[in-house]
């Protein structure tokens, strides 16, 4: 019942096996302009040819360092910034040819990190949530908004007429979630949605997200730098480095054994809950290279302890590894034919 209500206007077209979103070779390069005539002097390779898919009903976690292109990817998926290249296929329909951006936006919504900046300070909570249904011609936008407020755990009687600054961070993020749900989307992109919250509030919001997902049959793309949170919520995890996908696979498989050295060092940097198990040596030295001029070959070779000549010359392909279903990594170590001296020894052990 609640499921059909949620997919109001959003009928399933491709069936359960058609991925909800297929991103193909997405590219976004930001030009850096300077000088008198605003000439393009350099290009930031924010997202450089990434491909992935999001299955219906799953939560895909996207992790990576700051500046690796996680948020740009999110904004590309929802059409807030234009694609330079590549294509997005929403439930079997290609964006731009089969469906328009406006239709995609009914099906895909987003929750932003900054709970305060993502609410108009001059609108009451109920008006903020009702904005979407209103412009889409819903008969009773504020009824929808009040219903959703109840659903995300905010009493509409108490909170509907308040302004964003009268709410706490956790409450505001609940409002943002309600706003994202107001158009009954099928996919919700959560861009660092819980990162700015206190740990206890974060846990409450995560549980709320899990409940909503079950009740409404939602699909999530969950972007975060917090690996513990990603593990808690994700079914699959995608690891990004400098605008590229380095590893993608089921959360359990990746958390059990990382195939790419970058993923491994990222996980090694995760603070342990066990004081006896603390990290002694820094897992990764230095800053990521400048995305204006990314390294040749494997982009990680400048910081990788397994790097050899081949790594700076040939770009490794994202390929299936270790027989594990749908676990892919882009590393020469995983490829027996790559010519890397330690291929399939060090990591496979």
């Amino acid at each position, binding site marked *: 019942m609640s499921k059909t209500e949620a997919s109001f206007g959003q009928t399933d077209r491709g069936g359960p096996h058609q991925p909800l979103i297929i991103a193909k070779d997405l590219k976004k390069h930001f030009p850096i302009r300077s000088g008198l005539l605003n000439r393009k002097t350099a290009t930031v390779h924010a997202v450089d040819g990434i491909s992935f898919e999001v299955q219906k009903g799953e939560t895909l976690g996207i992790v990576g360092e700051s500046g690796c292109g996680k948020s740009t990817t999110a904004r590309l998926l929802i059409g807030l910034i234009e694609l330079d290249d590549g294509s997005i296929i929403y439930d079997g329909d290609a964006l731009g040819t089969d469906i328009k951006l406006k239709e995609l*936006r009914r099906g895909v919504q987003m929750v932003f990190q900054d709970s305060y*900046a993502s609410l108009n300070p001059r609108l009451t909570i109920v008006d903020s949530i009702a904005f979407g249904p209103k412009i889409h011609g819903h008969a009773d936008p504020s009824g929808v908004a009040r219903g959703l407020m109840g659903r995300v755990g905010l009493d509409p009687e108490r909170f509907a007429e308040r302004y964003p600054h009268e709410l706490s961070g956790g409450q505001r993020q609940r409002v943002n979630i309600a706003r994202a749900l107001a158009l009954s989307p099928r996919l919700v992109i959560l861009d660092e949605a819980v990162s700015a919250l206190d740990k206890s509030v974060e846990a409450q919001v995560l549980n709320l997200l899990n409940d909503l997902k079950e009740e409404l049959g939602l699909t999530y793309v969950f972007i975060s730098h917090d690996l513990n949170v990603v593990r808690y919520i994700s079914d699959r995890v995608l690891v990004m480095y400098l605008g590229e996908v380095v590893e993608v696979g089921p959360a359990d498989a990746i958390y059990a054994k990382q195939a790419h050295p970058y993923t491994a060092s990222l996980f090694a940097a995760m603070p342990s809950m066990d004081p006896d198990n603390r990290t002694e040596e820094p897992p990764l030295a230095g800053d990521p290279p400048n995305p204006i001029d990314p390294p040749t070959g494997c982009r990680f070779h400048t910081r990788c302890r397994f790097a050899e000549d081949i790594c700076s010359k040939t770009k490794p392909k994202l390929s299936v590894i270790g027989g594990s279903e749908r676990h892919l990594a882009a590393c020469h170590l995983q490829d027996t034919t790559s010519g890397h001296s330690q291929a399939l020894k060090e990591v496979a052990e």
Partner: protein
Amino acid sequence: MTVVADTAEVAEPVRKAPGYWAGVFKRFLNDPVAVTCTIVVLLLILAAIFAPYLGLNDPYKASMIKRLKPIGFPGFPLGTDEQGRDMLARLIYGGRLTLFVGLVPVVLAFFIGSTLGLVAGYVGGWINTIIMRTVDVFFAFPSVLLAIAISSALGAGIINSLVSLTIVFIPPIARVAESATASVRALDYIDAARATGGSALTIIRVHVIGNVLGPIFVYATSLTSVCMILAAGLSFLGIGVRPPEPEWGLMLNTLRTAIYINPWIAALPGVMIFITSLCLNLLSDGLRSAMNVKD
């Protein structure tokens, strides 16, 4: 199932909230300074409008014997000017033209400049470049010079000086509007609204205007006093209001010669300009804090 029942139950008692502007009005009324200033400005405007019905002396009737009489002179509560005309009548009648030439160009420039700035700031890109670079050209001239140049090109007269003053005030207002809009444009709630599928016009109307109007409005109010002074300057040069029309700026200029003989009289038009612009500024401050929901 329970979820749906809840929704229906909660949706029932929709108590109509007072709108945003009702809240602004309520907060504004709680600010004694702003309310006092509003009353003063309203009184000045009302006095100017209803000047003929106040039983005042003829503001144009000169008298060679009663020149520059002090404040409190029998029959002339505020004394007389350098031609023996009743100061009280001239000040009240003068409010008509002064407030008119002080407010109208700013109001016009407020609408035109805000529109230009909003479009430039929201759309960005080439449109921003074209609008803002054109605006920059006007910045190259000092405002007084620009007003004089346009006025003299158009010819003397009140309408032409209104036009020239409007043109003078469009660039600074567009500037403020553009920067306010650009900073709001970068906030996540605009992205969220775009992601909802709202058209640019709807987003500007619902999400941008309310958040940028405050600073633009406050800035525009502060320009009214500048505008009154510029208009007085134009009158002085003979390309604005012409004597014997009473106008505060013009009166200030003509009474300037009497400053050693009867300084109080000479200062009166200045006092009026001062009170008006001070009240307008305090009023705009009050309005700004009333528009700020975060108090």
